[in-house]
């Protein structure tokens, strides 16, 4: 309850600034129309009212975006091609698959890196290099290559999504699996524990907080990957497709609604991971 007030204050401030920006940015069109019609310059109050509900505003107002979100989620059959629930689900399914692949790959690489000196020396530079390539540049190529292999739809998007999400997991898990200090390792050595014993009994549990921190970054990156993966597919389905078709037809309200849908989905997924984290760490006795 104590958190509500500051949050509301921030939200209210953003909404106010947003309206101000919408008036400023959309008024140009109003003045333009008036000049073209040869009419007098409209009064300021009229300008303001005419910036609120334009068809193709430069910046849609909050209530327009809200209405569009409402209409395309609750006010529409889920099967409709214009339903954001439908498009959202297309993107979420690719995100989740990509996230699973990326996390699995990231964990495997991290395990390899901490146990194998050659991998330790060689994998990290490549992993870092892979993230410096703009994903927008590489996504169309992945789509094309996979398409020629007969893979379409979900899988190519999931692979782009995995491409973005494995990295934070590798970095976090390497750090996490290496987090036990020398004393802890020495202790296991006095028990003559095997490498596998040390891994399961010490390294894995110690890495849990690091893993969850990485997963939160990773799932957000996965979503970005899935959306980017939808852009070159010719805008068939998914939040990325909504963004693309919105920009084709100058439907700014639709673009903003899709953007907000993506943000809400991302926030929701991060919150879910946060809950799993809390539950896991509590079960492990690591939350007081």
């Amino acid at each position: 309850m104590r958190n509500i007030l500051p949050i509301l204050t921030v939200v209210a401030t953003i909404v106010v600034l947003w309206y101000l920006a919408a008036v400023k940015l959309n008024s140009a069109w109003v003045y333009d129309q008036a000049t073209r019609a040869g009419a007098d310059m409209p009064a300021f109050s009229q300008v303001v009212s005419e910036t609120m509900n334009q068809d193709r505003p430069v910046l849609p107002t909050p209530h327009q975006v809200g209405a569009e979100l409402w209409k395309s989620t609750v006010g529409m059959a889920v099967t409709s091609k214009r339903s954001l629930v439908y498009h959202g689900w297309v993107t979420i399914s690719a995100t989740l698959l990509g996230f699973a692949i990326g996390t699995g790959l990231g964990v495997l690489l991290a395990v390899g890196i901490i146990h194998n000196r050659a991998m330790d020396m060689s994998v990290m530079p490549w992993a870092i290099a892979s993230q410096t390539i703009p994903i927008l540049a590489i996504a169309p190529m992945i789509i094309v290559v996979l398409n020629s292999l007969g893979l379409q739809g979900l899988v190519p998007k999931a692979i782009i999504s995995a491409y973005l999400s494995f990295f934070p997991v590798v970095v976090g898990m390497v750090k996490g699996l290496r987090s036990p200090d020398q004393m802890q390792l020495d202790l296991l050595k006095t028990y003559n524990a095997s490498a596998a014993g040390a891994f399961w009994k010490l390294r894995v549990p110690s890495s849990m907080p690091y893993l969850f921190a990485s997963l939160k970054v990773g799932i957000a990156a996965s979503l970005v990957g899935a959306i980017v993966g939808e852009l070159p597919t010719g805008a068939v389905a998914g939040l990325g497709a909504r963004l693309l078709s919105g920009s084709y037809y100058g439907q700014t309200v639709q673009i903003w609604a899709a953007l907000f849908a993506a943000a809400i989905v991302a926030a929701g997924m991060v919150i879910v991971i946060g809950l799993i984290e809390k539950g896991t760490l509590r079960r492990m006795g690591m939350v007081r």
Partner: protein
Amino acid sequence: MRDLTGPEGDGLMKDTINAAAPVIEARNLNLTFDTADGAVHALKDVNLTIGKGEFVSFIGPSGCGKTTFLRCIAALETPTAGTLTVNGMTPDEARKSRAYGYVFQAAGLYPWRTIAGNIKLPLEIMGFDRAEQESRVERVLELVELKGFGKKFPWQLSGGMQQRASIARALAFDADLLLMDEPFGALDEIVRDRLNEELLKLWARTEKTIGFVTHSIPEAVYLSTKIVVMSPRPGRITDVIDSPLPKERPLDIRDSREFIEIAHRVREGLRAGHGDDM
């Protein structure tokens, strides 16, 4: 494995026929660390024999190699010269036969395991079956007077209790040799006194051999049958004192004349080792 028969045992038989075979035997042990700014002579010509059932304290100023010597015994460091045997084996063989329990300066309990879970850790690794694990946990918890705390997590216990839990963990698999590196270093005097008393009782009950590092002269004298005084740069043994105190030691033995005399000798040894800079 512990009775010395076999090829190299025959020669030793004559010496060991009366006294029990030594648990630890160091001959001209040297250890030099290569560091960025030159070699550090952490142990120089260390000779020491520790018999079964002894309580041996290592005392000396910081950096004199107490920890290093204990770690050599535990095969966590490798000496650069000399010989060291543990139960007649090399330290590494002894480690593999799980000959000792090691208690580090920090309790080092796993925060994600309960106290019982922490004590089970070595038992799981060594492959004890479930029922055996449970009964051993119960037994050692009683031994360190933590009965009923098995289900608590480490952060729910005081520092002293955590340290006792870490001792319980080292006791759980019944190694005959217990190596303890300043286990009570971070605790206040009163808790320390209690734990010292408990440790003595435990030692009397279990008849283990104990190697114990400390900075405190009264602690060393109160606990030990043998006090090893060390001095730094290079780390070496300057005096080995066999305590004449009886095995039964109430806390007020510390006011007895004998006790004060030994403490005095330890202090002299420490001062001599320190040269002029004291």
